[in-house]
């Protein structure tokens, strides 16, 4: 069953066409990679799928709701309830601890629960770093906190924008292990990446060029590369 369907999506910024007649689907529990050079429309697509922007034309069905037609307020509600966002630059709030950064997502979603937030940190191996500020964490640890924050409200779809783009190889492996585990647990994931090796981890790769989907292929072996046995 598809949880996401993009039908004939076009997005114009004045005279610039960022997306041109894009069709794309994501089934429940699928891991999809989106690749493409800079300016190909990856970010625009992420914005639309992440309920932060609306297409100029076409329909976006997320869990049965046409999000291209809902109001800005409802779009915020859908984003809060259904999407978990992971960023290349982590975007942790600098003056809040790792634990509080996770609880912020709970605060906007429903009710802050310190116990749940600690469990989420434990899941990414950072329980003992709960009281640390982001400036006291390494890049890899910050990204793991970002992942824990994205997962805390049990989102239907995890959107990750270059999740390993700012990490060294060791931390990249740790983060990818978490993604593999999430995939095994049945999470639906979209990862935007420049890195073909990261894209190969996904079940399917969509390539965007000049705002158009130029390739949409299934990968041979998904979520089974090195380190996948590690329980995170």
């Amino acid at each position, binding site marked *: 069953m598809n949880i996401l369907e993009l039908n004939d999506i076009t997005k114009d910024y004045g005279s610039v066409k960022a997306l041109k007649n894009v069709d794309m689907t994501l089934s429940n529990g699928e891991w999809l990679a989106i690749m493409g050079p800079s300016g190909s429309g990856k*970010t625009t697509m*992420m*914005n639309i799928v*992440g309920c*932060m*922007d609306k297409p100029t034309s076409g329909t976006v069905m997320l869990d049965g709701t046409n999000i291209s037609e809902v109001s800005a*307020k409802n779009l*915020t*509600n859908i*984003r*809060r*309830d259904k999407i978990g*966002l992971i*960023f*290349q*630059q982590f*975007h942790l*709030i*600098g*003056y*809040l601890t790792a634990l*509080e950064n996770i*609880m*912020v*997502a*709970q*605060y*906007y*979603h429903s*009710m*802050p*629960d*310190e116990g749940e937030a600690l469990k989420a940190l434990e899941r990414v191996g950072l329980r003992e770093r709960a009281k640390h*500020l982001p400036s006291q964490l390494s890049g890899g640890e910050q990204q793991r906190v970002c992942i824990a*924050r994205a997962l805390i409200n049990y989102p239907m779809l995890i959107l990750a*924008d270059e999740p390993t783009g700012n990490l060294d190889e060791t931390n990249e492996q740790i983060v990818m292990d978490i993604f593999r585990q999430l995939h095994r647990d049945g999470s639906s994931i979209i990862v935007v990446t420049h890195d073909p090796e990261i894209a190969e981890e996904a079940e399917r790769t969509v390539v965007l060029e000049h705002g158009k989907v130029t390739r949409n292929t299934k990968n041979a072996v998904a979520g089974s590369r090195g380190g996948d046995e590690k329980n995170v």
Partner: protein
Amino acid sequence: MKRQTMYMRMITGSLLRRRSRMFIALLAVAIGATILSGLVTVYYDIPRQMGQEFRSYGANLILVPSGEEGAFDAAAIEGAMRSVPADDIVGVAPYRYETGKINEQPFLLAGADLAEVRKTSPYWFVSGEWPDADGSALIGQEVADMIRLVPGDRFTLTGTDTAGENFSGDFTVSGVVQTGGDEEGFVFLSSADLDGLMGDGGRIDVVECSISASSDELTDIAARIGEDAPGVSPRLVKRVTESEGAVLTKLKALVWLVTAVVLLLTMITVATTMMAVVAERRREIGLRKALGASDRSIAREFLGEGALLGGCGGLLGSGLGFAFAQLVSMQVFGRPISFQPVLIPATMLASVAITAVACLLPVRSATTVDPAIVLRGE
């Protein structure tokens, strides 16, 4: 954990862990609150301070007889003074005026309760001593110059008493008074001495009163005396009461003007700082929105930070404001100021309100931040 607890954790975390930026805003609020609290303290204390200050410029209410006899007695004065709150009476000096001669030179004699005169006319400059016993006299500078008397000299007063008989009495000059006015041509005796020379007692020509009250209060007091005390006609000393009123009005207007300017500057400083805070936290605001924060949530958080800032600045300012008011009072009036506890919550509330108003524009700017900036990597 309750949402409210998390809310407080977020706004206190923002203020406490970003000290350098917020210190500037706190400083602006505290300075504004200090000036506000200080000036309001001074504002409410000015009438009291000015009242005391103006009491040193002499009587502000004169009582004269309204009947045809041209004089009244102590009972009439006592009746009139019942209309004045006892705590407000600084001094009441009844005078009896007669004429007499020293060395065949005619002079005006004033018989008065000289202890009360000292209270109603503290600006008199006396060389020597104020008379403290019968047989002592205070003479004006003009009299002293004319007949070459200095403190300690003895002189003889002669004249005609009420019955038409000649009188004569010896007195000692206890002091020479300079006032810059008509008083320098008078010889001041105690009421008892003058009554003794004139052969009768209890006659009073005029009463000078020094009352600690504002111009309006004094007008009310005069009106009450006029109604309640038969035979007594109250008259305000306009050069004193009107000067006091005019100075007070101007001072109060100045205080309000300075307060308004300071509050405006505080508001501008806080608004500018908060605008800078919003600009530097655009990503954070975008992130919060990306996590599902509504515009209302963002506004509530920034207003909460502003209110907390205002409360802390107000608390700090109310303490510093009292110190500031005390300094002003000591420098200008030379007297300590009275502490008004109600100014602490009032200053805090005013600071919170000013900060909240100053935050409106920055908050509006914050709510317009596009959550997509977290993905664009701006």
